[in-house]
């Protein structure tokens, strides 16, 4: 009789609280092996007929069953491959769409496990892009253009087609130590070692089933580039092991593949995780070792939560898209939960890292990160709980992670760091409101009429403000970048200020210079004097008001920004935005 995996309550709690519990991680990993077996079974039921693909799948499945019976470790290695998960999900998606799944690829996966264990076998394997891919190991280059070749191992030698023969012990990933085997290209491997803790991970630049992120996988990277990644990982690993040991051990156990991504520009850092490939993360080139360490912590949080969400339903429905303090776009509930959980790890990281740094600029960066993400995490969980999209287990999980986040948030930070963090967070929130909060035309018309007639703002005003993507265009990204530059790249910021070449308009320069009253006036003039709506100036005015003591104007900007903006557009541009804000107060 088949039962289901059971998750100890202590493991659930430890995961929610981001606590140090190797058993909790192990529980998730064990379930993933069963999940992959389950998916293989589902694919096996569909692998029927005489075509080459299904036939190769069946032969591979039979070999896999024999390997599992005689060498469970080799079978578990196969079942733990993120590559397997990526491919299995693709098969299921093809089944849903009624399109042809790549059944034959499973022969490559099983051949990889057999080769790695020196297990005797003979399989027909597909050739793609003149390569036979052995996921987790590398690929064999094939002469000519056959669609399939025979791959075999007699327990000593691996033979492929009529051109390849090598000792199975040499068919391994490339750890950079040389010893090339003709026709064989090992997947680049990174071995990072610090204080006796080793992390072996593959730098996957070839597998098509792991090229599934929002940015393309970096393929065909040079030997020098690979070495550059190895060096950066070694540096980042030292940071993690020395100062964030709670994260390093589980990462060494849980992340077996890193997919390098090609970003849109050199200044973008993009990282990602997909539940389709447990054990893999993806990232573009991390600009420094601390950023890499933080990225590993961040993405491993997603890996853990993806594993947990396979086991336990935490989110029942997605409901309306909502605000996430770390994203430009509105997010579904499941996405916000993922983000909140990732940021619990981030807050824990910066809580320690701010005491590690010694250079003033680095201390500032760490302090602002810490000051920004703690409150953001709390806000996100509050938002999530209000959606009623979470299951009882999801509510429990969210409350546990919120409580843990609040423990960190109660720690002190410098006034400068707090002020910078609050301003950057406010800029994000105001920008998001202008971009994504829609207003009801009839309500706006009614309010405009009341304002024109000199009537007071209706006290019972509860206008509908549905969230929709990009209802208004905002082009204040440069100001946002400069605001963040103050702590992300303070030396560059000082340089731009000293040279007088900050790429900003007059009002923004006044704001950045701390000339608050002049900035408020400049934004008001811009809004009232322009024939066109000035969304960027509205956001700037909200930021400038925030630098003044608390006021009713300030509160109106924080909560009624989109409504005021749309009313102002209807009223005509000569209206002073502060008069309007005062009307709402």
């Amino acid at each position: 009789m088949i039962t289901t995996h059971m998750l100890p309550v202590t493991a659930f709690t430890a995961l929610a609280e981001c606590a140090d519990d190797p058993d909790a991680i192990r529980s998730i990993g064990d379930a993933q092996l069963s999940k992959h077996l389950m998916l293989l079974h589902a694919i096996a039921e569909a692998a029927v007929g005489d075509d080459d693909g299904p036939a190769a799948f069946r032969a591979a499945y039979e070999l896999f069953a024999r390997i599992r019976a005689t060498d469970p470790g080799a079978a578990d290695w196969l079942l733990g491959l993120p590559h397997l998960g990526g491919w299995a999900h693709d098969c299921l998606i093809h089944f849903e769409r009624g399109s042809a799944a790549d059944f034959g690829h499973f022969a490559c996966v099983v051949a990889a496990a057999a080769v790695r264990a020196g297990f005797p076998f003979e399989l027909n394997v597909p050739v793609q892009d003149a390569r036979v891919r052995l996921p987790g190991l590398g690929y064999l280059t094939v002469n000519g253009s056959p669609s399939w070749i025979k791959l075999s191992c007699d327990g000593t030698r691996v033979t492929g087609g009529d051109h390849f023969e090598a000792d199975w012990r040499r068919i391994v990933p490339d750890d950079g130590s040389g010893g090339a085997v003709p026709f064989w290209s090992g997947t680049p491997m990174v071995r990072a070692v610090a204080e006796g803790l080793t992390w072996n991970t593959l730098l996957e630049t070839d597998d098509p089933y792991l090229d599934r992120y929002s940015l393309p996988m970096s393929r065909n990277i040079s030997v020098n580039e690979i070495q550059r990644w190895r060096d950066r990982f070694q540096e980042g690993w030292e940071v993690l092991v020395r100062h964030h040991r709670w994260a390093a051990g589980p990462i060494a156990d849980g992340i077996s593949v890193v997919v390098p991504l090609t970003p849109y520009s050199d200044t973008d850092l993009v990282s990602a995780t997909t539940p389709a490939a447990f054990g893999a993360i993806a990232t573009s080139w991390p600009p420094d070792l601390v950023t890499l360490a933080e990225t590993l912590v961040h993405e491993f949080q997603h890996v853990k939560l993806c594993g947990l969400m396979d086991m336990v339903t935490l989110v029942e429905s997605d409901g309306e898209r909502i605000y996430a303090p770390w994203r430009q776009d509105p997010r579904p509930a499941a996405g916000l939960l993922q983000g909140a959980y990732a940021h619990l790890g981030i807050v824990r990281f910066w809580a320690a890292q701010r005491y590690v740094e010694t250079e003033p600029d680095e201390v500032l960066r760490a302090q602002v990160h810490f000051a920004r993400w703690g409150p953001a995490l709390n806000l996100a969980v509050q938002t999530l709980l209000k959606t009623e999209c979470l299951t009882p287990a999801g509510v429990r999980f969210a409350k546990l992670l919120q409580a843990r986040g609040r423990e960190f948030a109660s720690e002190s930070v410098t006034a400068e760091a707090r002020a910078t963090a609050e301003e950057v967070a406010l800029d994000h929130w105001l920008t998001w409101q202008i971009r994504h909060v829609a207003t009801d035309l009839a309500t706006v018309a009614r309010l405009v009429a009341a304002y024109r007639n000199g009537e007071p703002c209706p006290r019972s005003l509860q206008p509908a403000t549905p969230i929709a993507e990009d209802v208004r265009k905002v082009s204040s990204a440069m100001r946002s970048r400069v605001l963040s530059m103050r702590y992300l790249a303070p030396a560059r910021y000082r340089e731009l200020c000293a040279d007088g070449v900050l790429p900003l308009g007059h009002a923004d320069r006044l704001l950045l210079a701390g000339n608050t009253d002049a900035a408020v006036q400049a934004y008001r003039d811009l809004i009232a004097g322009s024939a066109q709506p000035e969304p960027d100036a509205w956001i700037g005015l909200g930021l400038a008001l925030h630098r003044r003591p608390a006021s009713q104007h300030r509160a109106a900007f924080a909560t009624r920004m989109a409504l005021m903006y749309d009313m102002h557009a209807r009223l005509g541009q000569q209206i002073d935005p502060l008069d309007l804000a005062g009307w709402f107060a």
Partner: protein
Amino acid sequence: MMTSQEKDISTAIPDLRDIPADQLATLSSSVLANSIALYRERLKDNGIPLSSFQARI
């Protein structure tokens, strides 16, 4: 708040660790069938959500 005395949580993943791969087809377990159906339903509803993060410097 849960305590460690509470029962373990039953999950949606069938425990196949001790089941030989070649016997899965003959077991025809409803637990396995239900789990697969649930998983495919989830995939159909959500696609493969991606948790991606973008920071700009």
